[in-house]
């Protein structure tokens, strides 16, 4: 089994799917060169007709992807930064999300929209956001946010084979992180969370980069005698409620951790769901660890304060236990 970087896992997933299904095409800004490296080299294997460089054109990339999908193709579109989802929001939230429904399933919408999310590079409020929470609301989308190279590979392959539009959130800080990816092909179904660490006192639900921080926090807490169960949501829509609720039934406490902003965040939706479905299990209010409701600051020091950290997760767990 080889350790390969997150981007290489994505690259392998796309290359395999393109090889197995000639309807799979890749499009986006600079995808031939591969701005973050995930699509690099695909054009050499599959040619310019299946790896389409587009100009700077976010709503057009999304709209064009929908046009391609209508003809039977399976586009993997790249929007360079998750912040730019807002530039393409009409096509994503109004159009591609709805088409399976409004055509009664007559028009499958097998589109993956990949994007790079999150901070860590101090590149400002238009290049550093986690915007996935904004897309929980429009019906018809799926949202995936892997935390490891292993999951990135298996989830992207499932996303490409899905007949509904999938927003595939890749954190910039994960791109270079290596992980074990088995040589044999595998898929990870959308909608299945992974329990990363078993515990009995409190459940921490995280995804993307926050899984690693939650695991670090749980190691610290273990030294302090607190047993933390860490769940990697992996897919936010559809959410694996069964795994989450089973864990909450066991621990009676839940902390959600996200890099995105707190108000209207993913944690708010999860907290409401747990309150509706497992209120009797809760021994304490759900705690949300998230970014404050301010734009992502540009300065490195300010940005680091903005993003939830291991200490802030520990603080959240302490609050849940209080």
């Amino acid at each position: 089994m080889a350790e390969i970087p997150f981007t290489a896992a994505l690259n392998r997933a796309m290359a395999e799917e393109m090889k197995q299904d000639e309807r799979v095409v890749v499009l986006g800004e600079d995808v031939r060169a591969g701005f973050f490296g995930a699509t690099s080299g695909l054009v050499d294997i599959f040619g310019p007709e299946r790896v389409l460089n587009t100009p700077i054109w976010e709503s057009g990339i999304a709209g064009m992807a929908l046009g391609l999908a209508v003809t039977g193709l399976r586009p993997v579109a790249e929007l360079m930064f998750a912040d730019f989802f807002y530039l393409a929001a009409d096509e994503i939230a109004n159009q591609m999300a709805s088409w399976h429904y409004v055509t009664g399933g007559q028009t499958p919408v097998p589109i993956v929209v990949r994007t790079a999310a999150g901070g860590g590079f101090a590149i400002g409020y238009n290049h550093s956001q986690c915007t996935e929470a904004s897309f929980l609301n429009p019906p018809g989308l799926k949202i995936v946010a892997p935390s490891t190279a292993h999951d990135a590979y298996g989830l992207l392959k499932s996303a490409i084979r899905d007949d509904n539009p999938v927003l595939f959130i890749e954190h910039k800080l994960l791109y270079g992180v290596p992980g074990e990816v088995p040589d044999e092909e595998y898929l990870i179904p959308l909608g299945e969370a992974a329990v990363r660490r078993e515990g009995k006192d409190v459940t921490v639900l995280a995804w993307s980069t926050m899984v690693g921080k939650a695991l670090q926090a749980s190691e610290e807490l273990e030294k302090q005698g607190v047993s933390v169960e860490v769940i990697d949501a992996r897919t936010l829509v559809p959410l694996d409620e069964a795994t989450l609720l089973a864990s909450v039934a066991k621990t009676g406490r839940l902390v959600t951790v996200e890099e995105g902003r707190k108000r209207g965040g993913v944690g708010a939706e999860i907290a409401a769901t747990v309150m509706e479905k497992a209120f009797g299990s809760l021994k304490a209010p759900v705690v949300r660890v998230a970014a404050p409701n301010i734009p992502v600051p540009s300065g490195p020091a300010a940005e680091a304060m903005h993003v939830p950290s291991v200490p802030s997760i520990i603080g959240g767990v302490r609050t849940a236990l209080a």
Partner: protein
Amino acid sequence: MPVTNLMTFNVSRMEVMDLDGNVDAGLMPDLSPEQVAELYGIMVLTRRLDERMLKLQRQGRLGTFARVLGQEAAHIGAAYAMREGDWLVPAFRETGSFIVRGIPVERVLQYWGGDEWGQHFPEGSRVLPVSVPVGTHMLHAVGIGWAMKQDRERVAVLTVFGDGATSEGDFHEAMNFAAVFQAPAVFLCQNNHWAISVPYGRQTAAASIAQKAIAYGMPGIQVDGNDVFAVYRVVRDALDRARNGEGPTLVEAHTYRMADHTTSDDARKYRPPEETAYWQERDPLERLARYMRRKGLLDEAREAETLARAEAEVDRVVAAYEAFPAPPPDDLFAHLYAEMTPALRAQRDALLAALGEGE
């Protein structure tokens, strides 16, 4: 350093038929008398349907819809120029285009009646559903066009929109990249001069929509949109160019929205009556009828026969529309995802239980 002229451009306008129905023989497209009669029949049917739909709406039997009165030549002539395999990517004021492309028109009424299942068009029809955000669909047309080009299919995409849509960013994006990708697309602007209450002069400072094509690197032409022969001719030529790999074209059909914006609007509040009167003299259906009378293709008997046929078809369409059963409640949940998610299943079950239909 001298100042040199970088570019000079001209924008053409084509008219084939005058107000009395006389045609320019050199520009007249090659249409058989049967085809002319067919075009006339579709235009009559579209107008009768439009009138009946208005009555249905006023009676509460149909939802708000966008009338096509006065624009029959523009969107019917254009669709008539399409060939088998071509794609139609419409906005929402193209009822007659659907008829030309063989869509069961009762589906269109079903859509305006508030049932999305009205967008279930026959498999392989290559007609996209009604699109109301005015410009969004133009981007889809570019994607479809590009895909057709990669597949080496010698087909074209016709996308239709209004003058109001040219203010949307989507128009710019679609035009720009259709030209960059040399997508086999024809952009047909039905310039009906009013976007609800906003007149053409408040939509753009440009003298024509057609000239906007120049900046994108594609040909643009204005056509008398109330002259069905001119529209047919110009769009046919543009579709031919697209199929031959010569790239996209912008066609501005200069026409007029004789009716209100939709049935929720009252244009008398903001439009001068003399303007409507000016365009009434240019009525596309009457113009075609004048031509046909001159050519001996239409007399009172044939006119009455065409009208009777249209009425019978409208009766059939309305009956078929009203016979569609209301979709069962669980249908609301059935088609959002290819496979229903657990959360959605729970919401469906909750609704069914509330309706007393739970299992």
